[in-house]
């Protein structure tokens, strides 16, 4: 999808004006958090120790990513997979389209995958005349609506049942119903036909196991199982940091992933898929293409943002983020929302497109506390802010303001003089001690808030001259 991160402030206005969206986000994030917290409380063992171990595992894997990735490729190919490498999104689209064409695919069913959203796979395949159907219910809904996902694991959280009912009746010609079980049944029936007739199933990967060349996928709806069992060709699209070294690394990562995502001890389904259908197998695809997407990751690996590649896409940082809770996912303007998106989008798209995102955080730290792999998200946001300023991305007046601020703060004497002048002037202008409007770049502050007028006698002055006669110190 075309990134719209540069329109962040306009996106925010729209989000804040949308009452349905506000209600939907607070309901969803609240429930996810509640479930997540309950799952953490009932965690078998020490949750903090498990986070620490998972963080160390991911970091150690990234440190030797070349080795683990080589092993993954070798083992997957040994078991019949064809591995493809895409350096960027455009190359990934080309390769995926060529695979589909070579395999003679007319219809592909997809299970949910952020990597395919990132590279814009659907549009590319559709452009080549291949029908692509999303099979995760949430993705199916937003595909019908022509919208991007607004949450990593609940892509249609912003849609009400009435909106879904309208979509199903308008786009699918189904009888209008607002009953959720009936809507789910409609999707089940319509998508079952697609699963049975599709030539190719496309999935992402939650983890790639280097030891065996296996692909691990979690799902609750069973759509990932359908898409990877029924069609004759399976294409996996995964970014390169999904690799974990060993099969035995999978269970501890899964324990953290599903609990952090939905609060489930385990998702309804976990598929561990290795290679192609073998002689004597009852079912399964006879062709397996694994498309590994770099798209900027090897550059991220190089520098101070490496820890971002630990992310396992659980969405916990979205749910807990007070900013995400206020504006929802679409405002972030691309496929990755919330705190993880505010770090990842600028890294993948560049700060020219997405420099507003790192600024869209209060640095409250809740995301870092909840992250199952301990990504220091606020620290990375701060690094991105510094990089953005160094590259010249700034709001009007910001640099001048900051230089002035630094100059005033450079000398206590100057500061005190200005404080006193400011205090006197403000008390003359604003007798009740409230400043109802601020100028220039500060004006937004006073839209719905007052600013306190500076004290006529700043503390440093009080301390020097009046100490001893102030009430507390008589």
């Amino acid at each position: 999808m075309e990134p719209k991160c540069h329109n962040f402030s306009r996106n925010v206005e729209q989000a804040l004006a949308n009452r349905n969206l506000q209600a939907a986000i607070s309901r969803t994030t609240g429930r996810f958090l509640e479930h997540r917290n309950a799952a953490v409380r009932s965690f078998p063992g020490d949750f903090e120790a498990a986070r620490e171990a998972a963080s160390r595992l991911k970091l150690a894997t990234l440190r030797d990513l070349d080795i683990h990735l080589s092993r993954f490729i070798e083992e997957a190919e040994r078991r019949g997979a064809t591995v493809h490498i895409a350096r960027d999104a455009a190359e990934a689209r080309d390769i995926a389209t060529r695979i589909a064409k070579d395999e003679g695919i007319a219809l592909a069913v997809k299970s949910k995958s952020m990597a395919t959203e990132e590279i814009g796979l659907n549009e590319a395949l559709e452009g080549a005349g291949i029908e692509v159907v999303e099979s995760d219910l949430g993705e199916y809904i937003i595909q019908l609506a022509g919208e991007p996902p607004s949450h990593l694991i609940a892509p249609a959280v912003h849609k009400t049942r009435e909106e879904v009912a309208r979509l199903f009746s308008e786009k699918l010609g189904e009888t209008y119903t607002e009953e959720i079980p009936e809507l789910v049944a409609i999707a089940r029936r319509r998508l079952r036909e697609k699963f049975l007739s599709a030539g190719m199933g496309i999935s992402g990967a939650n983890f790639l196991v280097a030891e065996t060349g296996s692909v691990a996928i979690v799902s609750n709806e069973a759509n990932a199982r359908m898409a990877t069992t029924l069609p004759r060709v399976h294409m996996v699209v995964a970014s390169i940091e999904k690799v974990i070294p060993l099969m035995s690394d999978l269970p501890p990562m899964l324990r953290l992933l599903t609990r952090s995502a939905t609060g489930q001890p385990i998702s309804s389904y976990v598929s561990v898929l290795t290679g192609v259908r073998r002689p004597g197998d009852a079912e399964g695809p006879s062709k397996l293409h694994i498309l590994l997407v770099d798209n900027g990751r090897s550059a991220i690996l190089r520098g101070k943002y490496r820890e971002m590649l630990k992310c396992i896409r659980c969405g916990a940082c979205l749910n807990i983020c007070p900013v995400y809770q206020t504006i929802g996912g679409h405002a972030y303007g691309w496929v990755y929302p919330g705190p993880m998106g505010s770090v990842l989008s600028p890294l993948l798209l560049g700060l020219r497109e997405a420099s507003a995102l790192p600024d869209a955080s209060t640095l409250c730290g809740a995301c870092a506390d909840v992250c199952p792999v301990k990504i220091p998200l606020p620290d990375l946001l701060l690094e991105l802010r510094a990089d953005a300023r160094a590259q010249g991305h700034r709001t009007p007046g910001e640099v001048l303001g900051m230089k002035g601020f630094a100059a005033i703060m450079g000398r206590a004497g100057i500061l005190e003089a200005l404080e006193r002048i400011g205090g006197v002037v403000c008390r003359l202008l604003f007798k009740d001690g409230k400043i109802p409007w601020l100028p220039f770049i500060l004006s937004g502050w006073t839209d719905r808030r007052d600013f306190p007028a500076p004290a006529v006698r700043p503390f440093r002055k009080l301390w020097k001259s009046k100490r001893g006669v102030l009430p507390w110190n008589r």
Partner: protein
Amino acid sequence: MCEHGEFASLILGGMAPSAPVTASLFFTCLADALYPNVALATATVLERFGVTVRVPLSQTCCGQPAYNSGHRKEARKMAAGFLRAFDGDGYIVTPSGSCAVMVKEMYPVLFRNEPRMLDLACSVGERVFELSQFLVDVLGVTDPLSAFKGKVTLHDSCHLVRGLGVREQPRRLLRAIPGVELVEMEDSDRCCGFGGVFSVKNPHISCAMVEKKIERILATGAQYVTSGDLGCLMNIGGAVSRSGYPVQPIHLAEILAGPPPDEET
């Protein structure tokens, strides 16, 4: 990035010190210019417990606004000024969780490529304490001896609770005040939407967040909302003052100091 020095190991015991204690007051630029009473109250409480309070008057701002908005050069300049002002010994006490975090956690990042400054930042940083943390963990204060009266709810500031891990200290002090009824709000540690430069760059989101916070404050029926960070109180207070909500923001230090004697009846 810093290794704990001897200083940290000596004071993290939480035992009441037997020797006289000296503390430098890191009063913060917000208190200095906008809320001088908060700095005075901090000094008052410290003196009440026998602390000799020094006030380095060459201090200005720790540099957090510059750092948080990515202006590292300016931030380094201000940080260097801070380190000059507070170089020496003894505790450094501040009525602000976020300014404490700036010095303790962010200075080492700012000076990560300057070994000499990094050493200085680490040695100054480990001397820094937020007021309630200092009172409870260092001085072992169990009763702040305050005559403050009122129904109070506590907003956990992000930097205090997640940056410094200070959650219980202010509550213990508040509960020990006979005239104070502490009522907890829902999600007391959810960000109020201030975020320093965030509130300037994203005012609409910030305002929506503070409205949510005020909703929860009002639900407690408290007369006062208190916090260990002036940024939060300025944000909450700005919205309260504009909309006339029936709650009064007050810094924790002011509650601990108690009402000034001439206001007592």
